[in-house]
């Protein structure tokens, strides 16, 4: 394996030989993956292929047993915890929208806003003009200005998804990991979400895990197929769809 050669590339996210096992079951098995800066990548695969475990490894929730995970060509993600990794610039959107239910829409965005994180500085911190302007800007992007003082718990499912996208904008990560963003969405909402992700992709790198084929087609980006914790195929959706191995494990079912 040409490991040193790959490390010298300008990859934003670099996984090499990553293995994670839970009680002997290999959730990830010698997985290697490269995401370039500015890229949007779709990751597909049947249930149990290791998609969520891969996200857990990248965000520091799960430590790999073996392998390298490097961000931005310098940070060894296997040595850092969630907070460090988030501060480096990796944001994560969960499958189920998780907004802070007892906080207003505006406070949700304020908490996500890049910048202050340490407890002792937040004790006396007051939102600055720049922060308030940025919040207003995000509120207008996600079209939730009128709802800014509503509690998270009172939002509809769709509004929560939008708020979460707003929180990711506020967090302003270099790399955005998105887990099944269109689960439970209508066709129209799915299409809108694809547009929003493309919009976000102009300034951020994005990795999307998704089951919905029409959504992946709408994104029109390079696709990585995972199977049993390893990479099975990579290419455009048409290329991987034509791959007989992919058809067998995934599309053929």
């Amino acid at each position: 394996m040409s490991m040193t050669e790959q490390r010298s590339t300008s990859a934003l996210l670099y996984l090499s030989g990553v293995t994670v096992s839970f009680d002997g079951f290999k959730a990830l098995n010698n997985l290697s993956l490269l995401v370039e800066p500015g890229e949007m990548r779709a990751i597909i695969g049947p249930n149990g292929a290791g998609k969520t475990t891969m996200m857990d490894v990248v965000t520091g929730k799960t430590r790999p047993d073996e392998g390298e995970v490097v961000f931005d060509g310098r940070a060894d993600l296997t040595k850092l915890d969630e907070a460090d990794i988030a501060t480096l610039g990796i944001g994560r959107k969960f499958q189920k929208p998780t907004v802070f239910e007892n906080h207003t829409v505006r406070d949700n965005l304020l908490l996500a806003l890049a910048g202050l994180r340490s407890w002792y500085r937040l004790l006396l911190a007051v939102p600055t003009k720049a922060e308030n302007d940025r919040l207003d800007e995000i509120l207008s992007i996600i079209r939730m200005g009128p709802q800014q003082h509503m509690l998270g718990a009172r939002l509809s499912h769709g509004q929560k998804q939008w708020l979460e996208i707003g929180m990711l904008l506020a967090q302003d990560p270099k790399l955005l990991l998105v887990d099944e963003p269109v689960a439970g969405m209508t066709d129209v909402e799915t299409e809108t979400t694809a547009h929003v992700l493309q919009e976000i992709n102009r300034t951020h790198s994005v990795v999307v895990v998704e089951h919905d084929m029409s959504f992946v087609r709408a994104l029109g980006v390079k696709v990585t197929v995972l199977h049993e914790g390893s990479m099975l195929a990579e290419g455009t959706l048409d290329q991987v769809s034509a791959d007989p191995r992919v058809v067998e494990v995934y599309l053929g079912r």
Partner: protein
Amino acid sequence: MGRSLLDWRGWTGFLAIGFILLVVLPLMNAWAAPGSAFSLPNYLVPLLGKYACYAILALSLDLVWGYAGILSLGHGAFFALGGYCMGMYLMRQIGTRGVYGNPILPDFMVFLNYKELPWFWHGFDHFWFAAPMIVIVPSLLALALGWFAFRSRVTGVYLSIITQAMTFALLLAFFRNDMGLGGNNGMTDFKDILGFSVQADGTRAVLCFASAVALAIFLVIAGAVVGSRFGKALTAVRDAESRMRFLGYRVEGYKLFVFVLSAAMAGVAGALYVPQVGIINPSEFSPGNSIEAVLWVAVGGRGTLIGPVIGAFIVNFGKTWLTGALPEVWLFALGAMFIAVTLFLPRGVVGLWSQIRTRGATRKARVPA
């Protein structure tokens, strides 16, 4: 839930309670004609002072349970440690007036054949030394426990069990005579505090007043903390801890700060409590005490700051009255209260009030539809 003390409703409630405690009650005690309906009899003064100390304990517990989701079942330990620091100071003030008349050694040490003062007793003859210790000792314990627990990501019921085990371990330790803290008898027969007799009505009134002032100050501090951006982050940690981690927050720092602050408040409450009840012994560490404090918070309304203060007063008035009138019923009443609050008042007395209000509001809103 989670309504800040800093909105106007919180402030009105706080000001009303503060006004009664700080102005009305002392006036009723000092100037109303004895025997009139407005006179506050002297025997009620230390009782009210005691309740104010319990209210501080409830407030401190609400800070960690209501706002950080840390259900401490061992907060009585911090209260008792503050109390012991005050007790050590008061013991040293007895001087030669003890039964054995030893100018240095408290009576129980003479009785147990101590030849000299244990090292950790040095300095406690000075109030300037004892006063900071009241805050420092409980804070250090909270810092040590919290450091390991929060870093290891111990949460929920496991954390509750650890706190319970902590207070139980301290209970056993303080029972031992060779701890040098009075063993199972604890410390009592106090004479003076800052040169004033602890028995005198005037001193008791001042201690009661001091407890009310401390309660008011801590309400303001707690309100400022939960109303700040720190407080917003803290409640977010309570509601979705892993989400906060993925946003880049180091949640241990948040929990640790509020846990230590809370322990310090509980310590001050214990220190104000001891001269008013005249005794400190290891039973203050008993797990039952800490669980009772949880009940005060639940009755008043978790996560409201003002609610636990009200809850502490309500439950303890009930306890004083019931243990006097029908002593054998008290424990059953306590148990029944716990069940009733869990089933019917999940948000406590304060929550009941807002529940009625919102129900009224939704009913009004439904009419035109």
